[in-house]
């Protein structure tokens, strides 16, 4: 039968686009970077090692606030009413994952700035001596602050996953694996981001902590891979519509993004590099830059893949 009911454009199941994918990526990057840096700090402290001036921590103090701000800017721009975005700050519906996310971010963002301020306390106070009192106050509660940021970072990382998984009609999205997957990939991209920024801007010879960061990457990548496997195996057992969605990794352009971007760049390259790269490469800048860039691209691909392929299949 001919279409006599009119244009179908408005029924495109892909509602959220690359802007949301990049936003989710940025939020993950910020949260992951905080988690890795704070984790590293606690790890060092537990061994009585100094933590001041570590390149990775400096990197996180840049990435943490910058990524989340960029992400939020994109998010606001993507609203159909960007100038009324404040409405979302004054109206809350607590059945909505997004409302919880807004609350979490509302606390997280200023705290990340405080964190950053403490990391760069010296140059900051040189410029703005007036802030000395405030800085002292913050320093005093720093341990608590770090715990809070750590918790909120987990919340933000997981939130980006829950945001999508709350949509019940998309089989790829509507799964409990997704928050875990997003947290794992947030950690990957957080550590890779930290390494990249640290290597580019802050690293002199203290690359040993970069090595530490590097070490957590394997379990994280493993988790990420596991989540992906779980996701698609799960789909296979969740009825015909979900089963059909497994085509996301076998057909079309998003399958290519998945295999080349997510699996290739994001998982295989770092893994192969750590297995086969000659030892003397491992602490060189080009190596670190290349590998961490691959991880970052992989996670960016993952966010795009999930957002697009996730919305394309509907049950």
């Amino acid at each position, binding site marked *: 039968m001919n279409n006599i009911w009119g244009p179908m454009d408005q029924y495109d199941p892909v509602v959220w686009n690359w802007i949301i994918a990049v936003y989710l990526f940025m939020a993950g990057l910020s949260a992951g970077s905080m988690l890795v840096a704070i984790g590293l700090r606690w790890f060092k402290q537990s061994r009585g090692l100094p933590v001041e001036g570590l390149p990775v921590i400096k990197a996180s103090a840049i990435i943490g606030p910058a990524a989340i701000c960029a992400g939020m800017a994109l998010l606001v721009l993507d609203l159909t009413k960007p100038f009324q975005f404040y409405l979302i700050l004054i*109206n809350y519906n607590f059945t909505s994952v997004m409302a919880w996310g807004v609350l979490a971010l509302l606390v997280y963002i200023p705290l990340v700035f405080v964190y950053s301020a403490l990391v760069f306390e010296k140059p900051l106070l040189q410029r703005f001596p007036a802030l000395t009192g405030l800085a002292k106050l913050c320093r005093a509660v720093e341990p608590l602050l770090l715990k809070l940021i750590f918790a909120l970072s987990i919340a933000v990382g997981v939130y980006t996953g829950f945001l999508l998984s709350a949509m019940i*009609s998309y089989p790829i999205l509507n799964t409990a694996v997704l928050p875990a997957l997003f947290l794992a990939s947030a950690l990957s991209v957080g550590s890779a981001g930290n390494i990249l920024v640290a290597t580019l801007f802050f690293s002199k010879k203290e690359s040993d902590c970069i090595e530490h960061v590097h070490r957590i990457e394997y379990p994280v990548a493993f988790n990420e891979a596991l989540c992906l496997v779980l996701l698609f195996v799960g789909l296979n057992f969740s009825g015909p519509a979900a089963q059909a969605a497994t085509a996301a990794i076998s057909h079309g352009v998003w399958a290519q993004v998945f295999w080349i971007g997510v699996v290739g760049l994001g998982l295989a390259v770092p893994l192969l590099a750590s297995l086969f790269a000659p030892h003397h490469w491992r602490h060189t800048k080009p190596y670190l830059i290349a590998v961490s860039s691959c991880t970052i691209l992989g996670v960016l691909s993952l966010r795009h893949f999930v957002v697009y392929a996730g919305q394309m299949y509907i049950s």
Partner: protein
Amino acid sequence: MNKRYVMVHDENKCIGCQACNVACRSENGIPDEVTRLQVRIEGPFGQFPNLHYKYHRVSCQQCENAPCVKVCPTGAAAVGDDGIISVDKEKCVGCLYCVAACPYKVRFINPETRVPDKCDFCKSTRLARGEQPACVSVCPTKALTFGDANDPNSEVNHLLNTKLNYQDKLHLGTEPRIYRIPGNKGGIKA
């Protein structure tokens, strides 16, 4: 909330003529490029000559357990006292979460108001004047019936109690309030 408005679409009586589609647009002032309602004629399915079409009404299902309401961060997508789900233009930021979350893909951004729009059972237009929804009134073959399912004497209740019917995507737990009387194959004789 002692009313439970529902709509019944009899796919046997429906001829896919789109009178409802157009009437909805005129009555509710829906801009040209979007629509609250389509009746898609899908098919033919089957083997020649035993073919059949499916007349698929695509519009808001007025879910009793509405994903759009659940996900809306601001409460702009909300259930009214009458149980009808509509959009509060003043509260909406246009995050599109509800649009993405609606399993029936019937929410769209109204290019004039910049907020999501969808069928609201003509709540602010015809219902407010005590009339039946536009699509129901206009339907040439009386394929649509609208009313309060909580009223035991309502026509909708009678239909639901006497005719085989189904709802779309029940497995998602949305409890849609559009009921459909499936088309018989090979004739619609009562």
